[in-house]
């Protein structure tokens, strides 16, 4: 398990969340969104995408494939229409 810092774009605060090494980035996005969407950020019927150091990564890539280390920071957002 890896603790990460995450900001759901549009939310007001960065939050701590935990992912597994085998999680895909789609799963990572869901785990962070759980703490933001429908709590402070309005729910939308759109998929998420993950940005690491400003770069969007495919959702089916695994956490251990992108080399995330404990407390690295990621941004999750609704994918643009």
């Amino acid at each position: 398990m890896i603790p990460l810092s995450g900001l759901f774009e549009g939310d007001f605060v960065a939050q701590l969340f935990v992912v597994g090494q085998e999680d895909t980035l789609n799963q990572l996005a869901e785990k962070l969104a759980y703490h933001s969407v429908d709590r402070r950020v309005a729910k939308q019927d759109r998929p998420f995408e993950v940005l690491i150091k400003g770069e969007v990564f495919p959702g089916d890539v695994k956490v251990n494939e992108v080399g995330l280390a404990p407390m690295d920071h990621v941004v999750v957002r609704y994918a643009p229409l």
Partner: protein
Amino acid sequence: MPKLKREDWYHIAQKVNWTFSYVSHEEVFPKEIVGETQVPIEAWEEWDEPYKMTYREYVDIQRDKDGGAYAVKSALSKAKITNKLGDGWNNILKMHYGALAVLEWHAGIAEARMARFGLDSAWRNTAVFGSLDEVRHGQMQLYFPHELVREDIQFDWAHKAMHTEEWVSVAARATFDDMFSATNAIDVAVGLPYAFETGFTNLQFLGMAADAMNVGDYNFSSLISSIQTDESRHAQIGEATLQVMMKHDKEKAQEIVDRMFWKAWRLFGVMTGISMDYYSPLKHRSMSFKEFMDEWIINQFMQNIESVGLDKPWFWDQFMYEQDHISHSLQMGIYFWRPTVWWKPVAGMGIEERQWLSEKYPDWEENYGPYWDTIIQNYQNGAVEKTLPETLPVLCSCCNLPICIPDAKTGKVEVKTITYEGQKKHFCSDPCQWIFERNPQRYAGQKTIVDRFLAGEVQPPTVPGLLNYMSLSEHEMGYDPENGAWALQYNKDKNLVI
């Protein structure tokens, strides 16, 4: 025989420096505890306080001030005024006492450090009074709330807060340890009486006393007025020290002011920002936090730094940008993580209060309205659990506050991350990162609550485990005193837009 007038003899007692013969100057004034500057030792002889006072005068005045404040307290203690003032105002009291009372004692130690290690006798003499002032403030601000403990256990946090690992008290300690509890005499002189007291609290206390009078809390008003008059006197230590430093080491003076003004600002945003924009009862609000900052603090601070020859802090653009954000972001954070504080965070989100926010902050609805709309919807749908946290906010490795204030350059919250000696450090802003990076050894060991959580210090590693770690029992932890009833006044069918 008539006594001499003060001005006829004061100068004789003011300058009593002497040349040491059996020890070196460095042994008497070690640099580790005095601080290091480019100012030649003899230049400190120019240190001159504008507000001259003798010990006899000090005792006389303080005795009268104590008499006045305690008389008001005695007369009003049976009136149980705080019961009638509402949760918002009581939050202001609880936050103020918890974050400041014990730290006033620490400030007494810091002033005592200057009373011994200040580099001129006039400085040391003035700091003796400053130290006695701060001891007095600690005593009064513990004594006044003590009688309220039997009415509301959260008032016990006037004394308790600083003895816990509760995150707001950790943030307050992180700032005040850096500013005065754990630093040298020169840093204290510029950081505490200048950047903090001259910059912020001297005028804030005037405003706070007036607000307290306005809401009918005469006890608190008299207490704060009594403290403020001390502050305005001993705050002169800052400017007198800067006058000397500016001639010989402006760079150092500017660096301390920049660093401490920023840290003071962060804490001020929590304490005063939220109090003015959300906790203060609407009918008694005279101005918004932004208006107060503009009229009282920024204007006055600008004049002051100009008069001593300092420049505006390098982060001025970010500071000005935050006038529109800091209270709202921190209020959202404290409301959402409300179980983790020692007061009862009101939402401050009634329809009229929200209209007031939109008038005072024209972009408020766009920037902060949607968060509250989502919370309102959850209350209206009975999903109270979604108005509460299940994780922690990421905290800044410098100010220890949640990373939640947008960056002036992008208009978004930007988490600034570095790796220091193998550890990730996160910062809320460029100034906080700058403070850390200019002296990382000083700050690296200061673990945020998140660092401690991840290091296994919080057991069990759950929100209840965290509350226990922060010494918040179920009777003490914060909650919305209206239990979200305020949210039900909004029209469910209108997408909540007022």
